[in-house]
């Protein structure tokens, strides 16, 4: 009986695993061939399920399901082709970072479209009656649908393998994943094949969505919930490796299902000791991925070695925008701070107190974005799990307030130190892998922490932590924030305004300190590493050590922002989703790029623009995510150096208009893709 149970769970695991295989196969080949990290893959997966709903509902389950299984993937495949042509193609040769931003924008747009068209209610995709019948094989009762899923997905996976390995198309695609330039040099227009790869990848994702939709249900978060495990599969198996995707998919499916099924089961009772399956569902796959990457950085079946630096594409920093000289920028900065300093009064006078809370959030995120800029804009490392420091900073601050002291200075100090220490550990383990692998391993660490806070008693599980309060002071001398009440000119200065000035002060200080460090010898080495790691090594710098130090610095600053979140008087709860969810790692990258990285003030500006826009838009329309997503996409395509580059872009445009008739002076234009 125990064995039968086990086999049943194993089969359940394989069923889910096959879905991952279909997803990962597309993701992996898209990455391997095009070097695109496609975050929107999960949304294409969801789209497949939704189109299937629309087809099955009028036609009925018996025929509709089969029609949907063919038609919906075709539709999604065509959508994939459109996406590739219109948005991804202009970005080839750029750093994979830009694909993250772009596909992150696509996630928002597609997800909002789905909500708009199909609603937010969870729906059931009906499958033909006979597929739902239970079948007993060797005494194991499973619905026929399980076997159908395994079988159907296996056939598709095999088909993809044949396409990749036995056809001319496949050969060119595989050759492209080995060496794109070489394929171009022998006269093959590899770009055309990219469209095909992306379309097929999208269609496979759609099939996976339909198949899983019929097994569980169809909802708007389904894409979000599969994309991270799918990435784990791809990285675990080896980026670009089809075999790796199959093996990794099944492994992750089985491990996930077994850990869930046998959670807390007693394995052996040895009198004094009982050996139980640890409560590790969710953690296991990330531990597995980190373990594999540490031992074999290229994944289980990966063949690609270290990426050559040339192929990475450069990171476009905001630059100094020749238009504004140092003193103008200094004046602008002073004006900006002055405006921020009087902003609460303006809001008080106009009775818009609520917006102080928004400003507080902006300040916190501005510091968070600043911290990312240190590693991303100055050192050229792209961490996909930066929210781990924001989250751990918040949790650390809340825990210190709950258990030790409520002095804001000590609380924030503790948050900074704990995050710096965490960054040192994560950095020591992850900085030896580079590029996309570094991005992925940091993502895995962040997800590990995200899963972990659900598990532990002291972090409050899914409820999070509450009941803490900060005190403005140290060593017992000070005032709890809630007791601060001042009257200035007849206006009540409430605690959130006090906090606002505190956060503003810290924000300005962080910026000034970070700028000092980036203009000092240490910062100059970081920038040389960003420009060329090889070169930096061969003029005598220990690149790994410098990167790790930058990461520690960045982690500490991010810890400050997380700590501030906990200290803020309008924060009552620190929960996992609010702080450690992977979306926040994406968001902070997005607003750093949006502002213009490598400038320190750009990302802070980006935080203001992003959160401000979100606030304004959500007041007008429910589809604000779609608007924001579209703005990201347009920014990546047309303003890759961010908001701070707008003045010089405008100046350039004005120049061009004035010199009408002159040949375009594009040759030295830094906006032109260098790899074209």
């Amino acid at each position, binding site marked *: 009986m125990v064995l039968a149970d086990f086999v049943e769970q194993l089969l359940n695991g394989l069923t889910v695993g096959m879905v991952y295989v279909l997803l990962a196969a597309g993701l992996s080949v898209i990455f391997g061939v095009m070097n695109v990290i496609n975050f929107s893959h999960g949304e294409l997966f969801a789209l497949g399920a939704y189109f299937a709903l629309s087809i099955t509902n009028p036609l009925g389950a018996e025929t509709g399901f089969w029609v949907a299984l063919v038609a919906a993937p075709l539709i999604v495949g065509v959508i994939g082709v459109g996406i590739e042509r219109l948005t991804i193609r202009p970005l080839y040769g750029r750093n994979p970072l830009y694909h993250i931003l772009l596909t992150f924008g696509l996630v928002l747009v597609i997800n909002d479209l789905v909500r708009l068209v199909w609603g937010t209610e969870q729906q059931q995709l009906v499958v033909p009656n006979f597929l739902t019948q239970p079948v007993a094989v060797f005494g194991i009762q499973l619905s026929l649908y399980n076997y159908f899923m395994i079988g159907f997905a296996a056939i598709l996976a095999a088909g993809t393998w044949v396409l990749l390995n036995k056809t001319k198309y496949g050969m060119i695609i595989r050759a492209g994943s080995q060496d794109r330039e070489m394929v171009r040099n022998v006269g093959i227009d590899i770009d055309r094949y990219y469209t095909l790869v992306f379309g097929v990848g999208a269609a496979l994702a759609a099939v996976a969505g339909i198949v899983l939709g019929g097994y569980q249900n169809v909802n708007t978060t389904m894409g979000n919930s599969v994309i991270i495990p799918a990435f784990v599969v791809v990285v675990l198996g080896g980026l670009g490796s089809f075999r790796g995707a199959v093996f990794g998919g099944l492994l992750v499916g089985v491990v996930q299902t077994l850990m869930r099924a046998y959670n807390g089961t007693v394995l052996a009772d040895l009198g004094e000791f009982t050996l139980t399956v640890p409560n590790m569902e969710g953690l296991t796959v990330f531990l597995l991925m980190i373990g594999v990457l540490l031992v074999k950085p290229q994944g289980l079946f990966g063949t690609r070695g270290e990426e050559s630096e*040339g192929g990475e594409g*450069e990171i476009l*920093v905001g630059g100094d925008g020749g238009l504004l000289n140092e003193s103008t920028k200094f004046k602008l900065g002073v004006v900006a701070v002055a405006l921020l300093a009087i902003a609460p009064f303006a809001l008080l006078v106009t009775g818009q107190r609520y917006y102080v809370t928004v400003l507080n959030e902006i300040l916190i995120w501005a510091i968070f974005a600043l911290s990312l800029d240190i590693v991303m804009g100055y050192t050229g490392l792209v961490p996909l799990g930066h929210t781990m420091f924001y989250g751990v900073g918040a949790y650390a601050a809340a825990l210190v307030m709950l258990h030790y002291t409520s002095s804001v200075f000590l609380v924030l100090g503790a948050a900074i130190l704990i995050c710096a220490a965490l960054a040192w550990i994560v950095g020591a383990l992850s900085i030896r892998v580079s590029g996309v692998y570094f991005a992925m391993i940091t993502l895995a660490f962040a997800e590990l922490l995200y899963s972990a806070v659900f598990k532990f008693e002291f972090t409050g599980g899914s409820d999070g932590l509450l009941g803490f309060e900060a005190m403005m002071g140290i060593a017992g001398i000070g005032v709890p924030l809630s007791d601060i009440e001042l009257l200035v000119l007849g206006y009540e200065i409430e605690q959130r305004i006090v906090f606002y000035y505190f956060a503003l002060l810290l924000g300005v200080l962080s910026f000034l300190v970070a700028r*000092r*460090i980036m*203009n*000092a*010898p*240490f*910062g*100059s*080495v970081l*920038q*040389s590493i*960003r*420009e*060329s790691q*090889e*070169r*930096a*090594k*061969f*003029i*005598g*710098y*220990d*690149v790994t050590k410098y990167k790790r130090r930058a990461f520690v610095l960045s982690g500490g600053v991010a810890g400050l922002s997380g700590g501030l979140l906990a200290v803020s008087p309008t924060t009552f709860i620190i929960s996992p989703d609010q702080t450690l969810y992977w979306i926040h790692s994406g968001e902070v990258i997005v607003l750093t790029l949006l502002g213009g990285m490598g400038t320190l003030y750009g990302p802070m500006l980006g935080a203001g623009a992003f959160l401000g826009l979100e606030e304004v838009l959500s007041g007008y329309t429910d589809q604000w995510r779609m608007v924001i997503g579209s703005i990201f996409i347009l920014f990546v395509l047309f303003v890759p150096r961010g908001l701070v580059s707008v003045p010089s872009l405008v100046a350039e445009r004005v120049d061009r208009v004035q010199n009408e008739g002159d040949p375009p002076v594009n040759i*030295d234009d830094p906006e032109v893709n260098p790899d074209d």
Partner: protein
Amino acid sequence: MTDAVLRTDGLTKRFGELTAVDSVSLTVEEGEFRSVIGPNGAGKTTTFNLITGALTPSDGIVQFKGQDITTLPPHERVARGLGRSFQITNVFSGLTVRENVRVAAQSVNRDDINTWTALFQDKDDFESINAQTDEILEQIGLAARADEPAETLAYGDQRRLEIGLVLATDPDLVMLDEPTAGMSSEETQATMDLISDVLADQSLMLIEHDIDLVMRVSDEITVLTRGQELASGTPEEIANSEDVRDAYLGGARK
């Protein structure tokens, strides 16, 4: 024993079944211009990478100024005075010409920087580093363009900057990996002039497949084939060697 700058003994690198470098022992004397030549696949670049530290040898040792550096990482070799240039121009393209040289000079003037100043002192406030930077900008003839981004320089000037970066690390021995690859004969001449001009005080080791060039500039030549040392000697000796003629000059010459 004379003052050998570089000495390798039994240097070997195996990649799986393939032995790319097979027991190469060579000695570069101080002030010498040594070239290593050989047909494609002879193990030149692997030898180069073993000496600079980009690869770790399977066997054998590398000695630099009398000290064993076989297992040192590249940056520590640079700190001891072993510089290298890149075949494909590799400068910090987004930084200014001055900053390129300055950050290289900073690397060897670390005694002037303590933890506090490394983090909080403006990078342009260090007199010794600035002086060295200015001197090198003069030497490579780019002083007038010091404030332009390196990416706006013409190819030839980028090569100059490349040499400047090596020079700024104050090397005793400079390893040059096909510095004239893909150049016209005029550009090649200009580059070799630059090398003999600004790197006159350094020992040089040149990895090259252009045999005519090598014959003109070298003091000593080592010929590699299939990972092994075939012959070593002055250009005349190499030109007159039967073995070399058979293996390289005659048969496999490109």
